[in-house]
């Protein structure tokens, strides 16, 4: 790694090292069986969800074109039974993955973005900026985020993007704390001082040195946040915040309760979406824990 040829530019060297680092991380990650299984299943799930319009027919989701008997139990035609409108539960669960994953990912991107910006700013600028941002983070950290999300979605218009915003602006404090701690350790290193002495401004230090340094931990954190966002999405949809006509796992469970499927003991309306939520969340948790074990220096050497 130290034998960079003279012809190579510094940037090329940096990228070569980064690639080597990623390959090393991947090897360490792949030695953890549970994390690897979770990762493969996750990739498969996302691929299927994305390719769904190509391999499946959406028309069965339309209430007006429902062909089954209301709340029909599982049989040869509807493998997982029918919902209260006579639609196939299997089809709805598979299609529900699209919206649930989309909301989970979007909310996570929003929350990780907010968390990273606030975390880096709190560590980098110091002084009163840091003090205020820290108080702000601590304040949001203790707020019951679901209650805040409910309040937010009551004042915004109900719908999918309201859920994304409600989760995004309530889920960031954990990320902010993590990023701040990591930024502090990076900025205390001599090469940052050297960079400053050579005239590097705030933007240069943050973009060239801090961001690449915090990116791995942010990645590990992101996978854990997605799992929580999927649960939060299901919970908010269940409470009736989302678009009632959209097909998502939370909305399916909500209609199972409100339509009386639960009281009539129609377990086939209940198990598929719930199991889908739990398995997706478990996948993200496995991958996140695996990544954390590899990337978080404090956990190195511990057994997973």
């Amino acid at each position: 790694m130290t034998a960079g040829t003279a012809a190579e530019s510094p940037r090329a060297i940096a990228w070569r090292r980064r690639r080597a680092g990623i390959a090393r991380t991947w090897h360490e990650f792949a030695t953890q069986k549970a994390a690897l299984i979770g990762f493969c299943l996750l990739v498969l799930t996302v691929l299927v969800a994305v390719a769904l319009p190509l391999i499946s027919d959406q028309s069965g989701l339309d209430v007006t074109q429902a062909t089954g008997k209301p709340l029909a139990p599982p049989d040869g035609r509807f493998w997982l039974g029918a919902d209260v409108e006579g639609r196939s539960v299997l089809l709805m669960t598979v299609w529900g993955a699209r919206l649930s994953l989309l909301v989970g990912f979007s909310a996570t991107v929003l929350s990780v973005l907010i968390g990273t910006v606030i975390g880096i700013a709190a560590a980098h600028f110091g002084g009163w900026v840091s003090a205020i941002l820290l108080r702000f983070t601590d304040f949001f950290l203790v707020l019951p985020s679901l209650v805040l999300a409910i309040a937010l979605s009551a004042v915004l218009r109900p719908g999918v993007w309201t859920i994304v915003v409600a989760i995004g602006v309530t889920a960031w404090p954990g990320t902010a704390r993590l990023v701040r701690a990591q930024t502090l350790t990076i900025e205390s290193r001599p090469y940052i001082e050297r960079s400053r002495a050579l005239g590097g401004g705030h933007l240069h230090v943050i973009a060239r040195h801090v961001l690449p340094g915090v990116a791995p931990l942010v990645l590990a954190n992101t996978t854990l946040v997605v799992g929580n966002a999927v649960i939060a999405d299901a919970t908010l949809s269940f409470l009736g915040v989302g678009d009632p006509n959209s097909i998502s796992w939370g909305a399916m469970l909500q209609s199972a309760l409100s339509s009386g499927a639960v009281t009539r003991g129609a377990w086939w309306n209940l198990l598929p979406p719930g199991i889908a939520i739990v398995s997706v969340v478990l996948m993200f948790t496995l991958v996140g824990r695996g990544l954390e074990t590899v990337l978080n220096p404090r956990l190195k050497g511990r057994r997973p």
Partner: protein
Amino acid sequence: MSQTLATGPGPDLADPDERRGGTGTLRFVLRKLAEAVASLVLVTVLGFFLFRMLPGDPVAFMARDRPTDRDQIAQLRERLGLDRPILVQFGKYFAGLLRGDLGESYMYRNREVADLIGERLWPTVLLVGSATVLAVAIGLWLGIRAAWKRDSFFDRAQTGIALTLWSVPQFWLGLLLLVATNGLFPSRGMHSPDAGPGFFAQSLDVLHHLVLPCLTLLAVFYAQYMLVMRSSLLGEMNADYLTTARAKGLRDDQVRRRHAVPNALLPAVTLVFMQFGAVVAGAVTVEAVFSWPGLGQLTYDSLHGPDLPVLQGVFVVLTGAVVLMNLFAELLYRVLDPRVRAA
């Protein structure tokens, strides 16, 4: 510890270094009190302006199912104080809050929000309280057992179950329990009309209704006490003082009970109060599933109104309670941790 804490939602414990500042106890307490007051003020400000972001006009909403002329609307606006400048409104709201006046509900006509919250408070306290006590007891007990027999079948099985329950949305677990018990327990409310008179019969009736909601909350929350207790005790397992205790000839369970557990208990105990916010959020969904007549059900109902004064009141009361619980946890940590006390 970060390993287990990172797996779940909710706030994690603050950096230990921050707590062990060399300041005196009085300064520490005063600083924490000041921070809590600042947070409470922020809660009220947030609670006020959040609900003024609403695009529509609350008066138009209130008048939607009755024929109302312009004068009546103007009257209504005046009665609710909506015709005043926003800062004046905030001043009135804040002054009212200090007197315990949270305004008037839109949906329940002519009801004070504070009264509504007051009568819904005790069912929630009963539900959250009983679930927390049970979750802490079971979680700590399982965590101690699992850590003491590390990597045994018991440990692996318990950790696996706990992690799985972590990934379960609470309301779904509640629905499953409803279907699985199939009418064995009442599915909604807190009282049945046919329960006999007398204190004993009434209590039994409430307990009967409490079983499923309490079990649902318990199942998700015990996991985190268990995981934290487990990793905290694992951290103590190789400590020298345990070797000393064994060398004195103490039996294994004496070593565990008298030496290891008291030292490992601290993070778990503070977590009980730190996690209050998450428990409150859980209560909202569980109450919505079982129509438990508490604050969560009130939130759920007013969300569908939407009954903004009630939502606002519930928001302020719940977040205020969480802020106070966290203050309590910080102070308790100081009292319980001998290392901090000595500093």
